[in-house]
């Protein structure tokens, strides 16, 4: 048994099932393991003075007292795991979890805590529907963008966006549900599923504005909830992402000076890669309004990264030019971007210069999911109920699509937290 230590780092691995409260966040008991130590022993939360052997944890799993988490996450003293009324497991401050800016949703527990018999006919669901109808009448549309984020392997070829069957099913039932209710209020009106113009893909600030202006209700493409976006949008949480990529020229001064190994992790912490950039005066560029740029802005605000080292461009050709410009061959330059964009960038620059990439972590893992207007509980409840309905389907196509989504998420470094 390990000796208790103040510096022992723990990660939460299992949660104990428990009844939830319909309105407030409830604390959840959980099991932990030491980080960075090869040991099979588990602990009860922060109680590191005695351990549960792996056999007993398996027995608890078999009895369905505990459940292994899809996204084991570090927990520190002062934090707790919470079960929300929306059936999510969140790691957050133990005293003020809802106001905690660094809270992170670890699980979308739709398949854990939801009684399937309640789907679609509970009082809450009825309320959600009527509220959602009012909202959609006001907004006038139930629009969407199919995600193509998970398509990076097919770049640069133009291929149809990845539209998993579970997502299609959820959208169709929610649209039909809304239309049925809309007809009872306004017979002539009919909602349509609309797709944003191709050019609006990845213009997240624009999409955010559309959501806030009521032009679109829901954005179905996977969106990263950064600290900046968090003020305007909420998400139906589907995955977490821990890492972004540094992209650089193979054999470039930046690679040499920083000691970057293609494909190999460059640093274990956020500060662990920001500091070397600052110390070597390496310029770092990010795409405007994307999550890595938000991370760099935060680093600058905290005086960890001088503003003059930070660049941003909106378009792929500009970034490609900046990184491969022969006039600046001796400059140290890297691009910080998420993995999907990194693959696009490598493909776009193929003819001009060979590029490579190395994973580095965000300051905190980011939540990824389907976006809607901040604090709109009616939309949230409505969408969650339809996503659950599609996940609960016994169709093989749905099961396969869930498997494929999980696989594609893993391909781009995201950890799927939804149903398997």
């Amino acid at each position, binding site marked *: *048994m*390990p*000796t*208790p230590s103040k510096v022992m780092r723990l990660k939460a691995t299992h949660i*104990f*099932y*428990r*009844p939830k*409260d319909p*309105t*407030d*966040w*409830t*604390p*959840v*008991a*959980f099991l932990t393991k030491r980080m960075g130590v090869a040991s099979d022993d588990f602990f*009860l*939360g*922060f*109680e590191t*003075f*005695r351990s*549960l*052997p792996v*056999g*007993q*944890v398996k*027995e*608890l799993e078999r*009895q*369905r*007292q505990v*459940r292994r988490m899809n996204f084991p996450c570090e*927990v520190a003293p002062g*934090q*707790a*795991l*919470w079960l929300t009324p929306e059936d999510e497991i969140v790691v957050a401050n*133990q*005293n*003020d*979890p*809802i*106001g905690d800016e660094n809270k992170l949703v670890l699980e979308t527990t739709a398949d*854990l*805590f*939801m*009684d399937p018999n309640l789907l679609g006919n509970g009082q809450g669901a009825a309320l959600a529907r009527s509220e959602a109808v009012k909202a959609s009448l006001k907004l006038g549309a139930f629009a969407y963008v199919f995600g193509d984020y998970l398509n990076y392997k097919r770049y640069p070829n133009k291929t149809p966006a990845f539209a998993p069957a579970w997502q299609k099913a959820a959208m169709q039932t929610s649209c039909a549900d809304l239309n049925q209710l809309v007809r009872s209020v306004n017979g002539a009106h009919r909602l349509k599923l609309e797709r944003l113009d191709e050019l609006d893909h990845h213009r997240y600030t624009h999409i955010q504005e559309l959501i806030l202006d009521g032009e679109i209700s829901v954005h179905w493409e996977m969106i990263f909830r950064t600290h900046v976006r968090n003020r305007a949008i909420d998400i139906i949480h589907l995955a977490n992402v821990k890492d972004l990529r540094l992209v650089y020229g193979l054999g470039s001064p930046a690679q040499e000076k920083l000691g970057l190994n293609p494909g190999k992790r460059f640093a274990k912490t956020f500060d662990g890669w920001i500091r070397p950039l600052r110390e070597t005066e390496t310029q770092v560029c990010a795409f405007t309004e994307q999550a890595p740029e938000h991370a760099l802005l935060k680093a600058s605000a905290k005086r960890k990264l001088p503003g003059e080292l930070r660049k941003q461009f909106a378009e792929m050709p500009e970034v490609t030019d900046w990184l491969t410009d022969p006039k600046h061959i001796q400059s140290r330059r890297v691009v910080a971007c998420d993995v999907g964009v990194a693959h696009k960038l490598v493909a776009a620059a193929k003819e001009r210069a060979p590029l490579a990439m190395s994973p580095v972590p965000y300051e905190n893992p980011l939540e990824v999911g389907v976006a809607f207007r901040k604090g709109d509980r009616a939309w949230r409840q409505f969408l969650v109920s339809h996503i659950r309905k599609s996940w609960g389907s016994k169709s093989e196509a749905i099961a396969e699509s869930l498997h494929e989504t999980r696989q594609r998420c893993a391909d781009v470094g995201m950890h799927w937290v939804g149903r398997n």
Partner: protein
Amino acid sequence: MRRVVDLLTGLKKARLRSNFAFWIGKEKYPDSAARSSPALRVPTTHTFGAWRMDGARVAGRPYREILFDHGALKSDYDRYRGSKRTSGPKLRRTMSDARSVGLDRFVFAYLGVHDAYYARSGTVDVPAFGVFIKRVGEKFPQCHTTRRDLNSREAERPPDREFLLPEHGRHWAGLQATHDPRHFGDFWHYWGSKKYLRRASYAQDAWTWKVEFHFHRRVEVANFDALMWPYELLARSSGKKRRAIIEEPGLRELQARYPSCPVVLYQWSGSTPTICLIRASEATARFLLATGKYPDTDKDADALKSHAP
């Protein structure tokens, strides 16, 4: 393990007395040394869970079964007689050596702090309720004790000499707390204390030295001296916390049915799911020994804090 005798009719008082004399002689303890020990006064304890989950579904509420369905703590034999349930951690915990000597027909209680973690099985009751059992039921032959949990490596095998009269069990615990060098003369080290739990070896071994009480077939709720009842702090969207008593309707029902049973509320936390009960149980026992009554959670909050470890 070999069955000793019929534990209700076969154990003779004279034999149990001689067992006590044997252990006193073996350890060379003066038999009058423990007369003022808290071990003679502190109630025995028993712990059980609030829920039995089956995934997201609540499959059972042990506290309801005990308090309202059975109206008593029941021995494993009585709880599972005629049932198909043949496996599970609870049964394994009490049904191995215990059943082989006939102890499955008895309710177990410890002369020690409440603990929701069971070392032998790794089972955890989250959240947990804790009973303090009245001493009036400690009458042979309906009740007897063993010097150790029979699964303890310190227990003799066969266990014939382990069995003691209830009063001798308490006396033995007092002598151990005073004279066994590993307890440093501190009764609370023997009984169980949060202060010492920081040591991994203590957390692992504390159950092995405690006297175990056995009550024949059942302990009625009327014989509960007090009940530790968990509450938790929920987070509201306003940013404030709300105190929520776990299974509150059950508490109201208990107070209606057993108005004289004191209830001590304690704060349960998912991050430290067992130590919160240990801390509250120790503070309650200290308060009881100091004042002769159980604390009123609201009125005596400050006094209870001063008794907290």
